[in-house]
Structures are given as C-alpha cells and as structure tokens.
C-alpha cells in the first residue's frame, strides 16, 4: 500500500484532522483556544516541534530497528520530543528573543501534547517513508493550527454572547468542538 505524499497531507490536515477526528492535542485545543492571537503562535510552535520530532523519530526508528531494539521505541521517542522542545527553546532564546517571547510560554506545554507524540507513533505504525513522514507532520501541524484557529474565532464571538451559567466552560467548548468535528466529517474520503 503506497499513499502519495499529497494524500497523506490531506488526510492528516482535513479528512482525519488530528484534533477533530483523532482527538490528539485536545489539552491545548481546549486550553489555549480562547483568543485568536494566541492560537496562531501556539499552532506554529507545535507544527515546528512536530517537524523536528517527525524527522528525528524517523532516524531513531531506523536505528532501533537495525539493532532489533523496537521495545525501546516509546521511551526513545518521548525523550527525543522532550529534549527537542528544550533545544528549540534554547535556540530561540539565544537567536530570536522576539519569537521566544511570543512562543515561550507554550513550548513546555508541547512536550505533553499528545499530537506531537502521535505524529511520531502513527508514522511508525503506518510505516511511512521519509517524504510521507514529513508530509504527515506538515498535515498534522496544519490541521492542529486550523482547528485551533476555528475554535478560537468561534470562542471570541461567544465571549460576547449570553450563555446560561451552567454550560459555560469546558462543556460548551466540547459541544462546539462536536459541531466542528461534525462539519469536518464532510471531508471524509477526500484523501482517497
């Protein structure tokens, strides 16, 4: 079975949107999606870490498979992600303080974002080659950002409207996410 890189991208981006269909990365999705201006940097930071994680996970997986050490895969991945987040943080701090100020508070959160580990795990489970893995990371990041942006713009409107006190908070966000997810189901089968 060979999936074209384009179809991998579309699948991760729309048809099987990481947040709305696969339920990955829900914590930041529900947590930091109340304002548009924070949604975009958060999405960008996550996408970037996804790329790093996907690339290194690809290499590490090849290495572990070569030595027959598949049972260390999970530990290796999570350590890679945690350390690459640290590395990104340090590099940004040194070379681009402005960007660091914008993204800084989100970076530690990304370590426990299951979407990032999800990219690494799913690309391994589906035996993607390098190009497919990159497209998968791109699609996943774009999908995550899109979901975050959509949710944030809805919630910004919502802040201005009257809502019964009992539905406020997470319950309302979940109902909204349900409706978004329902509309994303229209993309099913798009990636072929």
């Amino acid at each position, binding site marked *: *079975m060979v*999936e074209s890189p384009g*179809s991998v991208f579309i*699948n991760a981006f729309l048809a*099987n949107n990481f947040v709305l*269909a696969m339920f990955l990365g829900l914590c930041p999705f529900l947590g930091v999606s109340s304002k548009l201006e924070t949604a975009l940097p958060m999405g960008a930071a996550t996408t970037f870490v996804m790329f790093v994680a996907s690339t290194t996970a690809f290499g590490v997986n090849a290495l572990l498979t070569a030595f027959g050490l598949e*049972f*260390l895969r999970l*530990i290796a991945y999570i350590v890679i992600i945690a350390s690459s987040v640290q590395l990104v943080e340090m590099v940004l701090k040194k070379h681009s303080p402005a960007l660091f100020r914008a993204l800084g508070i989100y970076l530690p959160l990304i370590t426990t974002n299951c979407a990032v580990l999800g990219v690494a795990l799913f690309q391994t489970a*589906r035996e993607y080659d390098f190009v497919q893995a990159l497209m998968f990371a791109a699609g996943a990041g774009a999908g995550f950002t899109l979901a975050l942006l959509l949710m944030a713009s809805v919630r910004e409107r919502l802040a201005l409207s009257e809502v019964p006190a009992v539905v406020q908070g997470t319950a309302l966000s979940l109902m909204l996410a349900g409706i978004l997810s329902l509309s994303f189901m229209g993309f*099913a*089968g798009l*990636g*072929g």
Partner: protein
Amino acid sequence: MNEQTVHFMPRMDATPPARMVRVLALVAAICGSLVVAAHQGTLSAVQENKRIALERAVRKVLPEAREIIAYWLLPSGALAKANGAPPPGALVFHAGYDASGRLVGIAAEGAAKGYADTVRVLYAYDPHAQAVRGFAVIASRETPGIGDKVTKDKDFLANFPLSAQLSDDGTALAHEIRAVKHGTKTHPWEVDAIAGATITSRAVARAINEAAQALLPRLSPHLATLAQKT
C-alpha cells in the same frame, strides 16, 4: 573567578553532577530491566496470539483447508517455505490443503487506507476458478456499525467470488478489481460498494486489488508445484 561568576554559582542545595549521573543511571537501570523483563516475559504469548489470530483468519477464508502451509515468494521469483521472519521484499502467502492434500486456495494479506485508519484484509484466492473467493478483516479501526458492515452485509458478501483472471501476458490482472457505486456492478471483477460505507468498501477492494496484482502474476508459474501438498 571573580565576584560575578560566584554569584551565578549553583546554590548550596543544588545536586552535584556526579550524584545526578549516579541517580539517572540507577533510574535507567530500573527502567531498562523492567522493559526487558516485560518484553521477554510476554514475547512467547504475543507471538502465540499473533499466530492464532492469523490461523483463525486463514481458516475463516479457507474453511475446507485441513492443513495450512506458509510460503515466501522471494524477490528472485523463487518459492520457499516460510521459516522465521520473512526476508526483505518477500511476499508471504498461505496455501491451504484439504484432507487429500489437494490445494484448495491461497490466502494472502492486503492493506489499504480506510475511513479511520489502515484496513488490513486477508483474501482467499481460488487458483482453479482464478477468482477471489472471499476475505476476512484482520485489523481495522473503522467505525463499528458502519465500517464493519463489510464483513456482515449480505449484498456485499455476494460480490464474491470476484474474478481475478490474469491478463494474456500474465504480468497483471486482466481487469483491475475495484469498487463501484452501490447497485452499479456489471462485471464479475467489480465490487458493489455498501451504500453508507463506501469508503470502507473501496478500501477492501483496493487492498485486495493491490495485493493480488503484486502476488498473483508472480505466483502463477508455481501453481503446478503447489497443487499437491509437499
């Protein structure tokens, strides 16, 4: 060392690096032995489970088979009995023989992207009729109640046997196996999709098609050898 650096020296209660390394080594040792113990402890049970699952699927698609032998079709085109992990590039298939040792069918795996994730199927090929007799789903995360209709829906199962004749030059199937919209099946190599579960139906058809296109042309020279149990 001037005043400034002293200021940035670690505080008194900071852990000395040597101790940090020692503790980390201890943690790594504990974790390492746990993982290895779990891996070794469950290895035989996991392999047994996988074997049973595969055997059950093969028995399901080739119910009359009394004995099932796994083979490899090597990249060189040669045939070999399966033994351990398949070499790279080898195609794995299972030949089922009835009580008299006659070949009743070939079972092989195929996979394609379905609605939620990859759908892995095992299809049974009948070399005498040159047709795909049926299939079983080995793994899928398709929506229960929709995607799993492919194994239950009577109309869908009526698609089989599915014509899988080789083309005249023997390098591919004469007709690509593909899913068509519900109610528009006109040829014996078309799969009538389930209305409402089109994507999974299409995945099943594509999984069978891709796997059969790869295996059957290379298998045909060996069918005479395989016809009787060896």
